[in-house]
């Protein structure tokens, strides 16, 4: 039995402390655990209060029982370290409770979590820590290995969470602002995407462009919010300068990596100098990032940094011969014609040779372009004619050639400003999306109700060409049920969904029409027969509505409808056909689309009919070709459809979702997760003035639809005959 050290605390505390560590001593967890608790207890009591130490005792027991002794022995020290990071005993008690929760749900992950606790608490407060743990428990409930990786911060998503919680300005929070900035200064709108969290480390450190888009690191670690903001601005301004002034890609030919680096550096300086002639303020933006000094050691990386600074900063004096030579060559060329792109190749080639002969060390694999705002320069090199082994070295050097940029529909790049090059053999430096036949892709965030935060750019919606089917059955149905579509047309026609207009000169109404009153009085005075229509009222007269009908075609829609012939998909198809017919007749703009999903990386979106197109044989054929398959990731589909509706200028814009059940997907264990996300997506659309309504084709799905769309935004039906009954409910919502 080891005596516990005496501590200077109130008398009742002494008794309680002894009792607490005696429990641990006698519990059979081993001497290491007991000793750790006895050693830390008094210090912790003095620092955070007695209750914390008693709670620690209970947590140590918990961890020893549920996990293992080694982890339990670590806990007291980690708790003392956590106390330094957290403010006050209450937060530390919360922290201990969180550790207990992990011990209960994911015992194998506790050791990793304790190991990373300091690292986590360095950037997260207790609430952030609890969110992180909740996310870890939820994300990998059935995947213990991934869970261990998550809590040990070896999982990309965990790292991303930590980065976002670190208070560093992360790109997704300023994405819109940066896109506007790039558009304002250079007049271009290429897709700008974060490098995915599982990309290799070097790629996550620099921006890059090519293949129709720009990629940026999710955050520039180690910079404050203000610095990050300026870094992103500087990086995008720089890439925009390439877009404007680097007219052609440089063929790599037989160049060595070091020469490639120097030529890239000179080209960077050239486009920046030209950009500063147009926008002098860019100099103030870029200059502070150039911090190389003459006293830096003459190794390749430092010399490149010093040359960069010498080429952008006129007053920078550097005694090194190579830097001086570079500056002189560049300035001489600048005096003649800086728009000549070949000067970068010429000067860079010369300087690269010199540097090679100086035998300075240059490791192309670890080389990262300096300063941090400059892009990896992959976009300005044409690697296509390289022998594979050479290409590999260069690719590794310029990082991340493997990131395939895809066309997104969140901002179409403008036309190239540069004139066509007479030499067709060289490829253009292009930020415009290549006009390929690939599916258009968009990324959307997804709401995680566990953490209460959005996961940015989490879901990928891909637009697939809709398959064609036989239109005959749809046509026949439209003919047979023409009375139904006429009823629907009449309903649409009779609905008054528009701004309320002032109707004047009425015999009765809500207000006095002053002009009419004056005229009536004048008429009386001049002996005219009075016109006493002196009232006015507000009235909705026309209809100014755009509708997007979104069909859920997940596998479950292959099931038969209760008490009906035909599948759920059949009912959806025919409902869409009837609505389309009715809307065509009344002439309202509408679109029809369908969706299904196969994990968050592949939400499939099929355009059946766009707003601009008429409801014709082609649209019918696409409608007929729909097949039930895969899952229902409703939130992402709603967001994607919402983007289309946001562009409409109608007074009311309606997203009408026809579905058979609750959202689900194969990569989600938690049933509630996608429901909550869809609910947030609906709220987001509503905030932007887009109305949403859901027609649930299964009574059982009603509660879920109510949760997502609200009770007043949901109706249930099992047959197309119910459509005329449900439609007025929608109009009622729209004319509120």
């Amino acid at each position: 039995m080891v005596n516990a050290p005496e501590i200077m605390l109130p008398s009742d505390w002494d008794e309680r402390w002894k009792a607490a560590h005696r429990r641990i001593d006698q519990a059979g967890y081993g001497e290491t655990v007991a000793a750790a608790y006895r050693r830390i207890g008094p210090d912790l009591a003095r620092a955070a209060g007695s209750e914390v130490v008693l709670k620690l005792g209970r947590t140590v027991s918990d961890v020893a029982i549920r996990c293992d002794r080694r982890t339990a022995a670590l806990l007291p020290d980690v708790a003392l370290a956590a106390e330094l990071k957290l403010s006050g005993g209450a937060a530390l008690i919360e922290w201990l409770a969180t550790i207990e929760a992990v011990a209960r749900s994911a015992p194998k992950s506790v050791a990793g979590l304790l190991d990373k606790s300091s690292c986590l608490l360095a950037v997260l407060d207790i609430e952030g820590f609890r969110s992180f743990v909740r996310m870890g428990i939820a994300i990998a409930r059935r995947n213990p290995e991934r869970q261990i990786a998550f809590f040990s911060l070896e999982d990309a998503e965990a790292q991303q969470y930590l980065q976002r919680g670190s208070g560093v300005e992360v790109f997704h929070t300023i994405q819109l602002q940066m896109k506007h900035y790039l558009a304002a200064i250079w007049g271009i709108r290429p897709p700008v995407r974060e490098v995915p969290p599982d990309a290799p480390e070097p790629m996550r450190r620099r921006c890059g462009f090519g293949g129709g888009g720009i990629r940026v690191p999710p955050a520039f670690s180690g910079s404050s919010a203000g610095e990050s903001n300026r870094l992103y601005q500087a990086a995008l301004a720089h890439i925009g300068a390439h877009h404007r002034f680097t007219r052609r890609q440089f063929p790599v030919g037989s160049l060595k990596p070091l020469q490639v680096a120097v030529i890239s550096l000179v080209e960077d300086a050239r486009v920046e100098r030209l950009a500063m002639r147009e926008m002098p303020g860019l100099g103030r933006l870029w200059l502070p990032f150039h911090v190389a000094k003459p006293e830096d050691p003459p190794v390749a990386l430092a010399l490149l940094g010093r040359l960069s600074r010498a080429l952008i900063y006129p007053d920078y004096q550097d005694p090194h011969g190579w830097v001086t030579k570079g500056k002189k060559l560049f300035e001489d060329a600048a005096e003649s014609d800086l728009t000549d792109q070949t000067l970068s190749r010429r000067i860079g080639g010369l300087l690269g040779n010199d540097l090679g002969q100086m035998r300075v060390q240059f490791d192309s694999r670890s080389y990262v372009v300096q300063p941090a705002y400059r892009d990896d320069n992959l976009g300005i090199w044409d690697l296509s004619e390289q022998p594979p082994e050479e290409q590999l070295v260069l690719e590794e050097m310029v990082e991340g050639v493997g990131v395939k940029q895809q066309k997104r529909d969140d901002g179409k790049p403008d036309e190239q400003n540069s004139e066509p090059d007479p030499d067709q053999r060289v490829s253009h430096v292009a930020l415009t999306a290549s006009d390929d036949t690939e599916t258009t892709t968009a990324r959307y965030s997804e709401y995680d109700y566990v953490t209460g935060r959005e996961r940015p750019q989490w879901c990928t919606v891909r637009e697939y060409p809709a398959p064609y089917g036989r239109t005959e059955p749809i046509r026949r149905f439209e003919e047979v049920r023409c009375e139904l579509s006429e009823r629907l047309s009449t309903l649409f026609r009779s609905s008054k969904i528009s701004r309320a207009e002032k109707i004047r000169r009425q015999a009765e109404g809500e207000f006095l029409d002053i002009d009419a009153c004056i005229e009536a009085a004048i008429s009386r005075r001049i002996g005219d027969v009075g016109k006493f229509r002196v009232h006015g009222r507000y009235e909705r007269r026309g209809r100014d509505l755009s509708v997007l009908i979104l069909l859920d075609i997940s596998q479950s829609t292959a099931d038969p409808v209760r008490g009906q012939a035909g599948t759920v998909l059949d009912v959806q198809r025919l409902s869409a056909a009837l609505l389309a017919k009715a809307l065509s007749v009344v002439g309202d703009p509408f679109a029809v689309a369908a969706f299904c999903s196969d994990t968050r990386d592949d939400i499939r979106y099929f355009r059946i009919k766009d707003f601009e197109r008429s409801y014709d044989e082609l649209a019918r054929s696409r409608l007929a070709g729909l097949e039930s398959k895969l899952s229902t990731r409703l939130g992402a589909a709603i967001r994607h459809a919402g983007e289309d509706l946001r562009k409409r200028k109608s007074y009311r814009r309606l997203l009408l979702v026809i579905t058979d059940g609750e959202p689900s997907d194969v990569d989600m264990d938690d049933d509630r997760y996608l429901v909550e996300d869809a609910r947030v997506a609906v709220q987001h659309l509503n905030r932007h003035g887009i109305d949403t309504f859901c027609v649930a084709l299964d009574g059982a799905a009603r509660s879920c639809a109510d949760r997502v769309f609200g009770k007043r935004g949901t109706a249930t039906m099992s047959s197309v005959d119910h459509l005329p009954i449900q439609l007025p409910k929608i109009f009622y919502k729209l004319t509120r």
Partner: protein
Amino acid sequence: MQPDTSKPKSPPSADPVADFMITEEPYYRSSGQEIALFEAAYAVGIPIMLKGPTGCGKTRFVEHMASRLGRPLITVSCHEDMTASDLVGRYLLDADGTQWHDGPLTLAVRLGAICYLDEIVEARQDTTVVIHSLTDDRRILPLEKKNEVLKAHPDFRVVISYNPGYQSVLKDLKESTKQRFAAIGFSYPEASIEAEIVATEARVDRRVADTLVRIGQRSRNLRGHGLDEGASTRMLVHAAMLVSRGISIEDACQMAIVLPITDDTDVRAALTAAISACI
């Protein structure tokens, strides 16, 4: 025809035409064929529509042309609540009874003035139809209340302005109105001309004007993507005027461009950074 029996309360102006004459020719810097086009349409009596974004010089152009042609100009700023009576005229009550008051359109018809209906799409379509009989070969204006049909003075012309950016399903001209007009398209002048305008209007140094025009162009890159319209020439002139009073370019642009043009924080931040890049 019934003679006007109303007794005017205040003595009419000795020369009503003089009230609407533009005595000092306003500064206008042409940047294309617009003067020649206007003069040709004026000569043959075709009503003219000026199409272009806000603040690009449409109103100034009309004033300039009225002065150049030596015709009085009567301007009406159209709005949603404007009625046909607001244009044509009405009887008003006074202590002695009723008295007819010509509206601006009627006055222009009588005096042979140029009637300039600014931002015509703002007016309701049932109001704008009153110009139909004046904008075809009839050239008459029926005054129903007075039981009078007014024949237009030979020099009377209608000019309307119209910002295509404001068009929507609900606010547009009737096809029958549109087709009565010949249109002259306006846009912001090219950079060197715009800088000349800014420098002349605000009496600032040409370098300041160049910088402001660069800033204006950057803001116009956001048109339709965060901004409904970029900074107009008018805005640039305002900013330049502030600069001429000793305000820094950055502050002047904040006051005259960024804050009035948008409430979106992202757009505002982007625009501020873009302005900084231009200075």
